[in-house]
């Protein structure tokens, strides 16, 4: 691949931050209505809203996680700028 040098510690930092964001997005829960509305159609509308919210947040979590893993994987495509001209360790995976 055409890339040259990127700092591994930069990529690690990006990965960690995005993992943290992923956990935050996935931990953001949607409450259940517990019959608070006293009306079937409002309860139904809230349930639809709830599903939409959960799926949207799932997209946030999925995308953040994927980006984090992408940053992580990029390390195997490029050489570590922090190492200067040193290539990958011999035979290391």
């Amino acid at each position, binding site marked *: 691949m055409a890339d040259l040098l990127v700092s591994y510690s930069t990529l690690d930092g990006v990965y960690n931050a995005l993992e943290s964001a992923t956990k935050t997005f996935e931990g953001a829960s949607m409450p259940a209505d517990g019959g608070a509305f006293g009306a079937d159609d409002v309860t139904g509308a809230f349930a639809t809203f709830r599903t939409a919210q959960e799926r949207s947040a799932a997209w946030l979590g999925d995308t953040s996680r994927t980006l984090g893993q992408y940053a992580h994987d990029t390390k*195997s495509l490029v050489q570590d700028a922090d190492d200067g001209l040193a*290539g*990958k360790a*011999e*035979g290391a*995976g």
Partner: protein
Amino acid sequence: MRVQWKTEIVIVVGALVALGVTACAGGGQSMPTPKEAKAAAVELLLKTEAAVDVPWPETPEPSAEKCPGGVRFGYFVPVKTETDARSVAQTFQRLWKSEGLTVEPSQKDFGGEGGILYSATADADGAAGAAYQVNATSVVVRITSPCASGSVDDYDE
């Protein structure tokens, strides 16, 4: 070899199974370590490079492949350069023959700027093997180490 169809199948499958069990049946010299195998390959590579004056790049990181009982390392060196392909091919052949390899050359005219592509593969038992593909605009050499002890899983896929 007229036998029942079903029996033929059984024999066939049996033969295939037997083939699958590649016998690296004991005896003979022990396998080199990866370090030794790589060294052998690099040595042949450096000799090959020394024999022909083209702008060779730095020795690349090898790729790892499975081989019977272990892992072997390939060094692939491409050079984009204008050159007298036939002469380069012959030089490689002579060198590798002198190193005890059996060389099998061939060629194909692709036309165009590159002209004829000269190819060859070269082997010797237990030693590093080699191959080249050379035309008027590029030189490609591949040196493969002998099979070494170890597992390809220890290396990048």
